[in-house]
């Protein structure tokens, strides 16, 4: 490759991966839509803040309603950063590199908002700090806030470190940037000049982060599962809850990544970088984690179903044939069994079909959390006497629904902003792979 070829490829690469960094009409409309929706939802939250949690459908029986289901879902979705970057990255899967930043973006967005989701379930949110002030080291609640905070910081650093080199390239080589963005990129690039020492620091830091990310991510969702599993209630009293939650999280996260890949590829014209191969491989990943999740599902339902202790029997009856049966089977068949079957075939791992499958899987993943959290509480071991009907049967209210939607909007805003102002595909990495080993920073 001659110098000129080199320059040509590099210019095209830079332009391909950064041309979307500009404020256009589409972006403004999309952000405007998100912002207005967010304000509507936040207004609903102010009502809850003023009037109290009574505006939600949660009562003395079902005290953990949609908010908690939402929390579990958010923690789950954030776990994908660990699977893609750390697990697949560390074992040397080369094809995963262009997807790592998408996965990290999703991880950062969901982890950042997961903490807020919990606050939505608090009647006195100003007492959040009490968790730390009065927290007991024996309580999974303390472990949960600790690991979520830690995982968020780790993910944020892991998102930022590979960006340093990209920022340096962009602020030096890309001319048509909005003028106010240039100084931002300059300060974020930390005067990176691609010298070996700088690269060494970055590579070593990334490696440490990747290794730390695995136990942190495993803890965050295992601890979240323990919030349920350390009680003796039917449906929660389970020894496989940790791996059941973690495998379920990988399913939700992989689906989220595939959906994001699809829209970035289309909107930012990245067809040459996110190819059918990537979708095919991510489809295989989704199929694999879904199979693992199916395995834990069988364990989770077959074993108590075989023994049929009284409380379990009531719980399983409601799920399999009772009030929650339709939702349960829709989730298990439409969100797990059918997707697995489809994904076995190559043609369903093409971008459009795998994206549609992922949407189904992701929706099912949310409702699965709902079924894990809510039905158990509707049949307590010691029912309260003389309670009204709405204590016994949980039905979410409109305000509650709006407050549940708010975190999704926040996640979309975060993902939109990160993907809009930074290259979706790691630029510096790509450049190295194309054989352009050193760019002259003049």
């Amino acid at each position, binding site marked *: 490759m001659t110098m000129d070829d080199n320059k040509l490829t590099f210019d095209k690469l830079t332009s391909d991966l950064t041309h979307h960094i500009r404020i256009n009409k589409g972006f403004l409309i999309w952000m405007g839509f998100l912002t207005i929706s967010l304000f509507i939802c936040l207004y609903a939250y102010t009502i809850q803040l003023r009037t109290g949690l009574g505006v939600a459908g949660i009562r003395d029986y079902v005290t953990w309603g949609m908010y908690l289901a939402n929390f579990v879902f958010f923690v789950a979705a954030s776990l994908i950063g660990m699977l893609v970057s750390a697990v697949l990255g560390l074992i040397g899967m080369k094809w995963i590199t262009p997807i790592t930043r998408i996965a990290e973006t999703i991880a950062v967005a969901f982890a950042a908002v997961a903490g807020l989701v919990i606050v939505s379930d608090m009647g006195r949110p100003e007492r959040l700090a009490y968790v730390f002030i009065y927290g007991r080291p024996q309580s999974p609640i303390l472990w949960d806030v600790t690991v979520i905070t830690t995982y968020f910081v780790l993910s944020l*650093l892991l998102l930022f470190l590979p960006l340093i080199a990209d920022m340096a390239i962009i602020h030096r080589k890309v001319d048509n940037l909005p003028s106010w963005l240039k100084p931002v990129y300059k300060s974020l690039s930390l005067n990176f000049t691609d*010298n070996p020492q700088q690269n060494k620091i970055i590579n070593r830091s990334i490696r440490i982060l990747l290794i730390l990310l695995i136990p942190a991510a495993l803890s965050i969702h295992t601890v979240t599962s323990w919030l349920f599993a350390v009680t003796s209630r039917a449906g929660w009293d389970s020894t496989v809850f940790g791996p059941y939650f973690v495998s379920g999280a990988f399913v939700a996260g992989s689906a989220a990544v595939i959906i994001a890949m699809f829209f970035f590829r289309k909107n930012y014209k990245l067809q040459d970088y996110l190819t059918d191969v990537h979708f095919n491989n991510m489809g295989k990943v989704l199929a694999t984690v879904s199979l693992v999740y199916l395995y834990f599902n069988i364990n989770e339902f077959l074993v108590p179903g075989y023994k049929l202790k009284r409380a379990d029997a009531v719980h399983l009856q409601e799920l399999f044939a009772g009030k929650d049966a339709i939702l349960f089977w829709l989730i298990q068949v439409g969100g797990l069994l059918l997707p697995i079957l489809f994904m076995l075939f190559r043609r369903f791992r093409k971008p459009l079909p795998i994206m549609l499958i992922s949407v189904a899987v992701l929706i099912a993943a949310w409702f699965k959390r709902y079924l894990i959290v809510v039905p158990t509480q509707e049949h307590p071991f010691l029912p309260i006497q003389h309670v009204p009907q709405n204590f016994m049967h949980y039905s979410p209210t409109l305000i509650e629904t709006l407050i549940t939607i708010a975190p999704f909007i926040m996640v979309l805003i975060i993902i939109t902003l990160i993907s809009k102002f930074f290259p979706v595909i790691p630029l510096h990495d790509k450049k190295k792979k194309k054989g352009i080993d050193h760019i002259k920073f003049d």
Partner: protein
Amino acid sequence: MRFKKLLFILSIISFVTRISAQTWVVPDDQKAVVAPVKFTADMQKQGEQQYLKNCQSCHGLMGKDNWAKLTPPPGDLSKEKAQVQTDGELFYRITAGKVPMPEFRNILTEDDRWSVIAYLRTFNPKYIQPTPVAKAAFTGRIVTLALEYSDPMKKIVVTASEQLKDGQTGLAAGVEIMLFVKRYFGRMQVGEIKTTNAQGKALFEFPADLPGNKDGFVEISAMVNDPKSVMKTTPANASFAIGIKTDKPGLTETRAWWSTRDHAPIWIILTYTLSVIIVWGFIIYIVYSIMKIKKLSREV
């Protein structure tokens, strides 16, 4: 089919609740009962305090319609449904209760109960108090109990004395005595009810296997069995070293999973703290390295 069944059950439930709501009938003689004294501002004030302590959790604040959502609904007592009732009716309902409303017979004294009614009536501008009928002077027995432990007999001796008509004190025979020992959750009765003999004494055998505190002390109390409240009685309390010496730490006094924060198991504190320190140590190190990147560019 299932729907029909549900309808059937629902109609039964609503029928039963309607019937039971209607059947809280106050006996006529109780309806006619009137307060023993004229309601005063002091009584109303005291009644308000009792109301906030005992009634508000279900009936809500007076006039605010914020009663608890229970079946049957407790309702706001400032409203007509409560205020049309006679003082006697209100007094009876407070005294006797009817599930889910608790009975206040043993929680509030008669005076307290009348104070609450005095307070409730302040929300009814049309209310005129019927002429009070003072209670007849008390003519029953006035009994006081005393407790001792007789070492030679190995028995607990309860002595009942009573006030005689001439102002003297004498021993009370024929009084039914109950003996209790204090346990973790309330009192446990010891033996059967016994009647005092001509010397006003009742003897109780104390079980040999009951645990006491670390010095073997158990708290004993003696009471008169007087279900119809025809006497005025004063119970007796005493502590004797007749239990088995037990020195077990309380459930939250040792280090354990379930204990308080100050009694967390050492290994949990270590695991938690070390993990946090190690991981955050690395994070701080990485942040420090990132700051170094900036410096390195100047040196090149």
